[in-house]
């Protein structure tokens, strides 16, 4: 059912698909499938670690974006 005029809710199919993709990126599947879980290293730390941190940051950033831009209910209700 369509939402009432002006109401915005953070959940959407696109958002949840993006979150699911970022969760999969957090878990170092890419390195198990295509690279090495120990190499390459940067500053002594394996590359998969940086990708996991970046994906975790991505989850927080897209969540904040949804909260700020796509969550407005209380002010729109009578």
């Amino acid at each position, binding site marked *: 059912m369509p939402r009432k005029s002006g109401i915005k809710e953070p*959940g959407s199919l696109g958002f949840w698909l993006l979150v699911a993709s970022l969760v999969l990126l957090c*878990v*170092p599947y890419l390195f198990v499938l295509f690279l090495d*879980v120990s190499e390459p290293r940067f500053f002594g730390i394996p590359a998969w670690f940086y990708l996991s941190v970046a994906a975790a940051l991505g*989850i927080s950033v897209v*969540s904040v974006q949804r909260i700020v831009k796509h969550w407005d209910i209380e002010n729109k209700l009578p």
Partner: protein
Amino acid sequence: MTSTVQLGPEALFVLGLYLATTLAIGFVARTRRQSGAPEDYFLGGKATGALLLFFTMQATQYSGNAFFGFTGMGYRNGLIWILSIPLISLIITTQLSFAPRLYILSKRHNYLTPADYYAHRYDSVALRLIVAVLTILSMFPYLMIQAEATGHAVVALSSGALPFWSGVVFIAIIMGVYISVGGWRGVIWTDALQGVLLTIAMLAATFAIVGLAGGLDGVLSTLDRIQPSLLAAPADIERLTSGWLSLLIVSAIGFAMYPQAIQRIYAAANERALKKSFIAMLFVPFILGACTLLIGLSGAALNPGLEGAQSDQIFGLLLARLTAEYYWLVVFVLCGLLAAIMSTASSVVLTLSSIFTRDIYQTTMRPRANNRELAMVGRLFVVVILVLVVLASTSSTTTLWRLTEIKIEFLMQLFPALILGLYWRRITRWPAVWGILGGSLVAATMMLTGHARWWLFQAGLYGFLVNLAICVVATWCMRAPDTKEQQRLRRDFFGIFTVNE
């Protein structure tokens, strides 16, 4: 565990000062009471602003488990424990699926407990009782762990002058007083103090412990030499999935269903306050998650060889090594640890008290009880549950993390009925009841038969999938709600958010 830390009587004085402050906060909170209504005692009149809401969310989420369980996970698993960051931030992301609507509904229909929503949405007393009992049973062992941790912290702070049981009893009495006297305001104001303390304590402990291990470079080079497996991720897809992807999914859903977390959504003064506290909560894991990882790695470099539940003791062992050089820091960190435990325990106790009062006492025993009686029963339950927790707290041979997993695997069974009830008007009470019972039964059976993890996923996740399937299939097989029920759902739920309802 921390009993090897050697501290003097001045540490006991600092502990006393901290505990006196929490008591004073409880009594000041009492003077701010607006009314004798249960909503005021249990949820502060639903007027909590963004800053206090953030502190109470943070302090409640990070318990003694963060110091012992999380550092133990970092110790056992190494660098892959960086996934503790998404593990925690995904809780808020998951709550975005239901918090916006649930917050509005809680204001309109004056919800006090999580089961209030289920009972109202599905017009079912049975569902209220099932949700209440499942929640209390899931959370009780968690309280036992917190009680056990307070005992160890007090033994450490008193250098053994106070025995384990006296620590548990003493802290339980302090908590009982400030919860009973101050109610919600007493709990969240102490949460603010405790949240600041635990954050500073965790940061300070991390810097000191990493320094002790020779800095980050020293930790990495030592691990590379003695335990290189801690610097690599599991090298096969099955282990990554069963160990980590499954964990992320179960944690995101299970932690999001914490009853105290749902009550914090109800308690927000307005939507703006809730949004601000959510935003702040999304970034806290980057600080505290990194700290637990660094402490765990440093522990593995300095003190290798601990296994199973023993590895949860690594934080205490590291503190003991720090005592000589950083005496006051260790005292401060132990107070921060106590603050982390007390903030979580007091929030859980108050929440369980509200659940017992509203969902069990008022529903089954005294439907006509007045506000004064309900508030009195709530206070009495606080005392009763603390006594039960003290009596039941014993040393566990299971890791703290495993006990946490068991709890969230049961709590996640409440998610399908919550989310489907918010967005799907066709679902009725029986599919929701069967789903929760079926999911919980599957999870319990698998755990009891030694299949806590089977193939790729944890038992709770299989239960969750069965639960979801029951809800959907049973709803499609049953008749749609009758006209009267549809009108009720339109008026009280869907008509608030959507047109053409």
